[in-house]
């Protein structure tokens, strides 16, 4: 009998939490051992808690060459999963599947292209991964938050490349929603746009960029919720 055999990679495994970084009252990062985990900047993983049947997707917050695998998590009020994640301690196990997704760029484009990253809240996660992976990348990061304390790890970005739009305090580069800032921007025609965060922000930003004459093919989106 002729049987076609094909090896299937088993992509599930448990990782021990090595460190928890508390970034604000609600937001923290989980640092896991890198082990054999290979991914491309911009991709996400699916994260499970040992003994719980549910899992959630998280963008990878660390760079491709970093020692640890890191994710950035905001605890959602009345959420199912994040309050449980919040309770985990160093040494606890999480289950990881992936990496998944096509949100990202080819290394050669990262070297030569011009990028505008637009993020709301924890939507900054894949961009930190990109910036850490490609230190020479030519980017502007527009980050929309409510309070400027949510400018996670902002010291890691060059100050002329990071634009903080805070809607509820006056401590950002711009006071108001990021879409307000975006409306007044001009970008060169060959810019690649990467949008990440909640779907309402992405919808509004897409409309603004399309109005400015950019093609949908040069705009990449990662919707969180």
């Amino acid at each position, binding site marked *: 009998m002729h049987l*076609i055999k094909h090896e*299937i990679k088993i992509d599930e495994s448990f990782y021990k939490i090595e460190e928890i970084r508390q970034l604000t009252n609600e937001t923290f990062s989980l640092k896991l051992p890198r082990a054999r985990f290979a991914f491309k900047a911009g991709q996400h993983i699916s994260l499970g808690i040992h003994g719980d049947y549910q899992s959630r997707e998280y963008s990878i917050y660390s760079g491709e060459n970093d020692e640890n695998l890191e994710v950035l998590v905001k605890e959602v009020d009345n959420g199912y999963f994040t309050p449980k994640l919040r309770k985990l301690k160093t040494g606890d196990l999480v289950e990881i599947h992936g990496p*998944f997704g096509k949100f990202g760029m080819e290394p050669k484009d990262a070297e030569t292209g011009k990028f505008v990253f637009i993020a709301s809240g924890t939507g900054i996660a894949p961009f930190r991964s990109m910036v850490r992976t490609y230190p020479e990348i030519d980017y502007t990061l527009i980050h929309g938050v409510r309070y400027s304390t949510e400018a996670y790890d902002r010291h890691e970005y060059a100050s002329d490349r990071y634009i903080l739009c805070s809607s509820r305090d006056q401590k950002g580069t711009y006071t108001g929603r990021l879409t307000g800032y975006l409306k007044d921007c001009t970008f060169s025609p060959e810019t690649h746009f990467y949008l990440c965060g909640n779907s309402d922000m*992405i*919808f509004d930003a897409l409309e603004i960029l399309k109005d400015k004459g950019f093609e949908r*093919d040069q705009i990449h989106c990662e*919707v969180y*919720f």
Partner: protein
Amino acid sequence: MNSNNTKKIAFKTLGCRLNQYETDALVTDFDKAGYQLVGVDESPDVVVVNTCTVTNQSDQKSRTTISQAARANNNAVVVVTGCMANNFKEKLESQDNITFVVENNRKSSILSLVDAHFSGEILHPEQLPQDVFRYEPVRKSLHTRSAVKIQDGCDNFCTFCIIPMVRGRAVSRPVAEVLESVRKTIENGFKEIVITGVNIGRYEDREARFEDLLAQVLEVPGDFRVRISSLEPDGFGDRFVQLFSHPKLMPHLHLCLQSGSEKTLLRMRRMYDVEQFRKTINQFRSVYPEFNFTTDIIVGFPGETDEEFQQTLDAVSEFNFSHVHTFKYSVRKGTRAERMENHIPEKIKTARSAQIRELSEENKLRYYQSLIGKTQKVLVEKATRTKASGYGDLFVPVEFQAKDIQKNTIHTVKLTGLSGEGEKLVLVGELVPN
């Protein structure tokens, strides 16, 4: 149980074309191994139920099918596989009327499991190898056309979809294996091959993308035609459009739009927008004006406003789909959409679904009417002594009068009119002598 040595096996399949293909492949396995294929009502020794869990309705249907099959065949070995086996594994395993629950990635080894059972060996499904492509090319099928599976799994994580959880991440079958399977399937007498998978546009085997694979499939020698099962509208270039000028590749695509509202598409985490979809459709129609597009639409997705639904109606009108597979949104446990706000009442979903259906039927009528006077090459699926029916190149159903025509043969038919209505609308025609 059957007294002579030949064991009888019956299959029940629910859900998508991929499931159908996988059943066909299992039929081939069991047929080769000497099992006799029978109906579920013909006292089989084994019943395999290949389940689906894409909607709540399919869950319910799968459950009913399992209990009916088990009840009617008290002593039979009942094997439950398919997406439901992944999603509700433990629950199914605790049911007395089911002998084995086999997850999707072990499905292709069901023959080994059943053989082991009859020879007295105790084998647990978990001991079966995991391999989603370990299928024989289809030899004996319940259909005239045969699917060739090129890919499994999907990691798009559309917010309504359970597939990434039950079918796992995307894996592609190597080009050489696909071509071998195509050759074997043609050798086995099939005249039409359907390229199948969960998200086949994402095919990737080293350097080869979907278009590259398709180009190679079309170059396999032999008298056969190729169709593509449903496709995600995911960035196709001119090369893909160009491939349809190949006489073997049939001018029909089932491109899943899901919604005509940009906001809804984003909430669904779909990877395209209406404008990109429009571009694809126009690109095809500018080269092949009669090209047939069909689609899937979900109505009543959480938060879908009247205005957003109207945008879907507008899109269905504009894109002239000849058929719309309409789904009323139903919650799948564990998906992101389950946790969204503003779920739509059933009554509104039903009304929206009826509106889409009505529009789709108008489209279909208009499209079929536009084909009258043209010819189609029809692959005959059903034939009586005086009549034959099957699908034309454009994947439109055609009936024609003809004497003693064989099933699984292709005939040129001039389309002369229509018969039936609504879902049952078909084109009728006259045989054009060779």
